[in-house]
């Protein structure tokens, strides 16, 4: 019964929907048509269906959350005395073993008789509890909607009730997004705090050397580890600024061309092509950068007589800039297109040329949106990993020279967390600290963006 409980709820709800709608219809016939009811028959149907589905689903969700705790706590009384004196961690291991034996998972053939007995008990408890839950769910799926059916009358405000429940669903959905964000931030903060126990905050924030390899054993010849984040962030901002100096002019100017000069036909043709750029996977850009652009830059550099390493910030930045162009151009184009025609007319009627109109009136009017698109692009540039891994290298050089190899925050996080990890070593935890700092940077960026947008919006509307 238990595996079929969700389909049962669905079938019951559909049945009660039909019953509710039918009852409403028959009431409508009595009062002379649906126009005399407060709500449409479908509202009454939905009302009964919700009464049918909501309580069982709530019970089911609660049960899924607390099932584990409930069953294990029922086991604890039956375990022999010596197990109860174990520490919490060891007790968890024992429970896991019991569970594995009972459900036939990994390590299912235990020789320990106590474990076997406990496993049998576990299964028995689980089944009886689940049967109980099933019964409860079926009762809850039938009794309340029966009351709801009885409750249906000409004046029942089913429409409002259904809409209120709809609103509750909307709130729940937005809560999911918010709670997820909060959860991620909290977990990053806690891991970062662990890291800052091993490495002082000031060393991390102001240290000029990044070399996260630590000796795992006493006799190992590895370095002791240096966790200065400055070179990593410098590399990030170097590459991001190269990318932005490519993407902002090209993106913005092509947006101006598209929205102001191009005919409608050109626009509908060119814009999707530009947007395809955004659809290319970053890993493709990555090998394009590593195999085509980086060698090209090196060759040009050699021809000009400067030393260029085969992995350079310039190559990564240029390709990243190309990748970001559609973010700037597409959004800016929409924003410029949305500037009202009256604004253009006003300027043209003063004898301004088309270009003067664009420069003095349209761009200022569209500025909030343009700034928004640029900041979105910057966030994208700061978070980009693949291109940098492939084209810019891994060595954390403290340099402003775009012709040398640099590394970025995201690349370092990847290299720190790839492979086998121990979560008590500062090397691994450093990833969380980097993530936290990057998060703080992008947060500040977003706040600045919001401030700018709000200021101009007040001014221009």
């Amino acid at each position: 019964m238990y595996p079929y409980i969700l389909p049962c709820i669905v079938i019951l709800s559909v049945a009660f929907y039909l019953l509710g709608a039918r009852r409403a219809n028959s009431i409508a016939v009595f009062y002379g048509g649906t126009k005399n009811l407060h709500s449409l028959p479908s509202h009454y149907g939905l009302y009964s269906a919700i009464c049918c589905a909501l309580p069982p689903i709530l019970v089911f969700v609660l049960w899924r959350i607390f099932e584990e705790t409930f069953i294990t706590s029922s086991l604890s009384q039956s375990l022999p005395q010596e197990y109860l004196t174990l520490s919490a961690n060891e007790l968890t291991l024992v429970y896991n073993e019991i569970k594995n034996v009972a459900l036939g998972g990994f390590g299912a053939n235990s020789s320990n008789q106590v474990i076997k007995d406990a496993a049998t008990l576990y299964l028995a408890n689980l089944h009886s509890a689940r049967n109980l839950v099933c019964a409860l769910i079926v009762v809850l799926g039938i009794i309340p909607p029966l009351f709801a059916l009885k409750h249906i009358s000409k004046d029942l405000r089913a429409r409002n009730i259904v809409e209120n429940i709809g609103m509750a669903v909307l709130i729940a959905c937005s809560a999911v997004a918010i709670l997820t964000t909060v959860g991620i931030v909290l977990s990053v903060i806690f891991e970062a705090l662990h890291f800052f126990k091993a490495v002082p905050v000031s060393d991390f924030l102001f240290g000029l050397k990044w070399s996260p390899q630590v000796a795992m054993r006493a006799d190992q010849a590895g370095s002791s580890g240096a966790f200065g984040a400055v070179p990593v962030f410098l590399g990030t901002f170097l590459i991001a600024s190269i990318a932005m100096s490519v993407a902002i002019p090209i993106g913005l100017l092509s947006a101006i061309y598209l929205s102001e000069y191009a005919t409608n036909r050109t626009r509908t043709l060119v814009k999707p092509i530009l947007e395809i750029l955004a659809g290319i996977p970053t890993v493709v850009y990555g090998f394009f950068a590593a195999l085509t652009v980086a060698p090209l830059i090196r060759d040009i550099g050699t021809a000009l007589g400067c030393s260029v390493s085969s992995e350079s910030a310039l190559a990564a930045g240029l390709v990243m800039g190309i990748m970001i162009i559609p973010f700037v151009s597409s959004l800016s184009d929409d924003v410029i297109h949305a500037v009202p025609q009256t604004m253009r007319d006003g300027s043209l009627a003063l004898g301004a040329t088309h270009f003067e109109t664009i420069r003095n009136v349209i761009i200022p009017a569209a500025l909030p949106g343009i700034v928004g698109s640029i900041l979105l692009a910057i966030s994208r540039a700061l978070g980009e990993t693949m291109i940098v891994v492939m084209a810019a290298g891994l060595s954390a050089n403290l340099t402003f020279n775009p012709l040398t190899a640099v590394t970025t925050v995201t690349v370092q996080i990847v290299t720190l967390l790839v492979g086998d990890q121990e979560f008590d070593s500062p090397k691994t935890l450093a990833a969380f600290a980097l993530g936290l700092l990057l998060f703080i940077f992008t947060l500040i960026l977003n706040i600045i963006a919001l401030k700018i947008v709000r200021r101009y919006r007040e001014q221009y509307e």
Partner: protein
Amino acid sequence: MEIATNPTDTPFSIIMPKPIDHENSSDQIVQPDRETVGIPFVKHPRMSCRDVVVRYGDKQAINSISIDVGKNEALAMIGPSGCGKSTFLRCLNRMNDTIPSCRVEGSICLDGIDIYDPATDVVPLRARVGMVFQKPNPFPKSIYDNVAYGPQIHGLTSTKAELDTIVETSLSKAGLWDEVKDRLQEPGTGLSGGQQQRLCIARAIAVSPEVILMDEPCSALDPIATAKVEELIAELRTQYSIVIVTHAMQQAARVSQRTAYFHLGDLVEVGATDKVFTNPLHKLTEDYITGRFG
């Protein structure tokens, strides 16, 4: 404007309704009963339009209109919605150029020079024929910059002091100076609707145009703001020629010296405003101003 009593000395060349020529009317777009009556022409016009036809694609919006705009007069254009008066107004400074499907035929001369001649540059033309729109459309700039914009792009001033003077005189002429002189750096969009419209008028007169076109300038304003703008129009008329499109017939009667009545793309009647409103020559005009139509 003086109006002479003796018909031979009149500054207006009075056109009486032409006898209808049924033989030749087949190729004419103007329907015989919509032939312009009244006095469309003046002796020393600022702008003179002859046989102006406007088409949007295949649709003809204006059928062969001829009319003059005199110096220092306010010419009101009235008529039911969709009669082509706004379209015609936008022809006078070639704002219709921004609409790709729009074609203008005939001739429109400003001080004797055809503005639709290919040799004519549209940019200085629009500086000489300014325009105020139906909805106030201040730029997303400060009040000062809104007014200074025109003089700046045309290089009318060389020093900041000159620019300040232009801004102040323009705002004063628009009757807005006393209200905004302490907040010139605040955004123009923060003003009330009536103030915004007067700011747009100040912006238009800052480039010292010869003609100001107004496309229902008061339709988005409340009665008090409307009264102020009307007062302003009466004052501006002493220096500029004004062509105003309006739906409010009282407004046309209050601010204009001559009134033109448009009907479905035709110019039906033009005449001195008091004549048109008290003693219209054409049946359609009479129907419209008495409220039987439109």
